């Protein structure tokens, strides 16, 4: 049973940060997961009054406040223009509309959960997280950091001409994924680059970057080889939703489908 001794709706980021430095302080996201644990929380810090619930688009980036809900993400026109339906696809399976009206982007990313669709999706994009004290760091670095006492303020996606695909396999439509997989490609520093993010392996999502120039008319066989290489670059585990071996097979199939889909669109 989790307990809270004190709830504070922070008035400034500074206040929130200071309060959070105590060992038994926690920052509140959507309260989807924290409530299920056994934490004894001395001070729970609510960031909802700090304007972190907005998605802002500039010429170069889309900045998603940490308190934005997954439902905002799902319905965000800026992300849709940039990445198509992939972003909505990455969250639409998550439990239900009520859940997504509540779960926050900050909570999903900060938690770095193994099953996270949100993390899997953002990892494949050109994404940074903005921290109160730690500056702005690449999501791919942040993922591997230990949880600390900094505040996650926003998730920043750099705009650029990129293709994005997202697919997952689930036992029931609203279950955690057996495997989740995002593929992104675009020209980076003048070179065609592919990013593959695979989550729920069941370990948390990890990123693979490949400077591959895949011909638009690549054969099925060729794409299959690329996909095999991608899938083999990750490690997998076994739990009640699937075996390591099956997950690797799924990774290969999904990566192949995503590459094929991108190539088909570009042809």
């Amino acid at each position: 049973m989790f307990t809270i001794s004190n709830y504070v709706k922070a008035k400034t980021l500074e206040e929130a940060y200071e309060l959070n430095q105590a060992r038994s302080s926690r920052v509140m996201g959507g309260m989807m997961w924290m409530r299920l644990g056994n934490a004894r929380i001395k001070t729970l810090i609510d960031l909802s009054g700090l304007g972190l619930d907005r998605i802002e688009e500039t010429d170069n980036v889309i900045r998603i406040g940490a308190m934005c809900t997954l439902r905002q993400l799902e319905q965000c026109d800026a992300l849709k223009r940039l990445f198509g339906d992939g972003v909505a696809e990455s969250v639409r399976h998550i439990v239900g509309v009520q859940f997504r009206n509540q779960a926050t982007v900050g909570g999903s990313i900060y938690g770095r959960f193994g099953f996270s669709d949100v993390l899997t999706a953002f990892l494949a994009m050109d994404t940074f997280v903005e921290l109160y004290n730690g500056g702005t760091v690449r999501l791919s670095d942040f993922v591997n950091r230990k949880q600390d006492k900094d505040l996650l303020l926003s998730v920043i996606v750099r705009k650029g001409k990129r293709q994005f695909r997202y697919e997952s396999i689930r036992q029931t439509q609203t279950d955690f994924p057996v495997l989740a997989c995002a593929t992104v490609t675009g020209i980076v520093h003048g070179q065609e680059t592919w990013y593959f993010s695979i989550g729920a392996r069941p370990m948390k999502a990890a990123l693979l970057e490949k400077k591959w120039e895949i011909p638009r008319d690549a054969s099925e066989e060729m794409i299959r080889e690329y996909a095999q290489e991608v899938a083999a670059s990750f490690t997998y585990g076994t739990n009640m939703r699937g075996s390591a071996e099956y997950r690797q097979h799924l990774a290969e199939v999904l990566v192949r489908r995503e590459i094929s889909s991108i190539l088909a669109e570009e042809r």
Partner: protein
Amino acid sequence: MSMERTEKLRVVNHPAAKVDAEALVTGRAVYTNDLAPADCLIVKIVRSPHAHALIKEIDTSRAEAVPGIECVLTYKDCPQKRFTLAGQTYPEPSPYDRLILDQRVRFVGDAAAIVAGTSEEAVKKAMKLVKIKYEVLEPVLDFRKAKDNPILVHPEDNWRSLCSVGADNNRNLCAHDVCGAGDVDAVLKSCDYVVDRVYHTKANQQTMMETFRTYTYLDAYGRLNVVSSTQVPFHVRRILGHALDIPKHKIRVIKPRIGGGFGAKQTSVSEVYPAFVTWKTGKPAKIIYTREEAMTASSPRHEMEMHVRVGADKEGKIRAIDLHTLSNTGAYGEHGPTTVGLSGHKSIPLYGSPEAFRFEYDVVYTNVMSAGAYRGYGATQGIFAVESAVNELAQTLGMDPTVLREKNMVREGMVMPAYYGETTKSCALDRCMARAKEMIGWDEKYPCRDMGNGKVRGVGVAMAMQGSGISHVDTGTAAIKVNDDGYYSLMIGATDMGTGCDTILTQMAAECLDCDMSDILVHGVDTDVSPYDCGSYASSTTYVTGMAVVKTCETLRKKICERGAEYLGCSAEDVEFDGQKVTNLKTGESITRKELGNKVMSFNNEPLSASEAFSSPTSPPPFMVGMAEVEIDKETGVPELIDYVAVVDCGTVVNPSLARVQVEGGIAQGIGMALYEDIVYNKKGKTYSNSFMQYKIPSRLDVGTIRVEFESSYEPTGPFGAKSIGEIVINTPSPAISNAIQNAVGVIIRELPMTAEKIYRGMQEER
């Protein structure tokens, strides 16, 4: 034929909204926890972390010192007479193997102590302070190794079995039997084709949305009042009498609205704890099971392993069926000896009268969560095995599985040796099959169609049956009285758990009494005032209690005529009652029901009421055919249910809209069992499947389209020709979906659930 008999019906065989609908859709406070007084003590259970252990020491002093704690009860406080929590007619076939709390704990989650206090916080705090020293024992976790295992789940001397069900606690046996007709081994030996396979169904949770819950208090007479979400109020009264070792007249059980049961609440899962607290302290108490408790310490479906042999000749005539069922009752024996029987008695008779059959079973104790009753009650498991075996036989014969069934299925008038030798007086199974084939487009779609996008769609079929009540046992009683202004009150002891029995029994009464449903008030169950009914289970309410209602109304009509004649000053032979008034046919003089109702309240020496009971020597089976269309992703194995078609013969359909929803709901549960739901244990016997996050019941995105029709026969022994509907509907999805997968990709899955990974592995092996 049945058409003629049902077309004159005015209320029965017509849709009607449920009598409690308005309260339910506007969220009125009608369920147990909505009604519980605010000053109830909160009751919670300290549960064993071990699958098998003895409590060596238990120290409650620190827990009792927590402010607000009323009591902490341990095995030392409990009566030492064993009992069963199974809601069955006395003497129960389920063994008496329980104590409220026992020194030996037998599964992870077994009750070790009861804590009661004034607030949830205090109780939770105290629970952590109950110090228990366990002597951890080796558990029996593999049900295939349980029989005659040196480790005994119930070594105690006072274990008792009241009925001769072949139980022996010194062998971990909860039941054993064998029955049959003809020489099965000899006939199988002479068959041209024999399929010999083993099938495995897992435990499943009913997951009614309202978990187990009960509150209790003492009334002005010092009696224990129990308000509980139960399917079996009268059995609960007896069970509590046994558990607390107090006379039954000290106990009153009331059933409010219930948020679903599906058999889970045919076991008295939650009642004993607050009852014990109230009896000890004199204070009101309530227990609300968390979903986690409802998933880990409840009454799920029995896991079964079934070895089937089916033999046929070259033409596809099924000549013999041999079934051996091994059933896992878990730590306690609730419904163990009876569920297993249905695995054979409700599967083999689908094939009428084979030359020989044998049905043998063992039910074993293990150190996992105790099993109980779940819709289908063993038939679901047995039908998965036998119907799957018949589908494998069809493949062996190179025959369309619907054609194989048409050759062999039971038909009206046939004797069913494996169904206690009963004869089917009503059976439209053949029409169900024909209609289901039309509905799904079987002839065009069988066996499969490649969709050209890496996906292939297959169709599959299964048949099912169930009973209508337990013959020679189940008893329903109804009572009805005429009140002021002539309105009726109908008293029943059957328990509406959302299924709508209050409604359909009102419909029957309105039909019998030539009145509107709104002229009849129906009363929920209160064991102090309701007439006896064994409860709502075993598909009994429509058939058994329904007949009791019909008989009661017939008696009342006679009494109304007699009384009317008396008031009109003529002979009862000369009057007619048309529902509104009693008329003297000779004079045309009449007295209205309203006048009659008011008149009997003055200077009257005999109440204008009637009460009758019904119990049946037979249990007429409903029949159905289910067909599934399933799409398989050839690369990932992911199955998607596209379409499910069901055609049901439940005799006369009493309320078509409620019956239809029963069918759709049962099929959706069956789909969950077939494809998604799994209770998974770790090596130490702890289940991972402890929440809706880890045990996935289907959402509305997981059930495809479910289409239902009825092909009614007319059951001469039932009310208005009706048979049961509640349970049969869960039986076809597992075998029909399995068959669709088989026909789509050639993979036969013999262990549920049929996950994408299992299908994928099957396809790998095929290559």
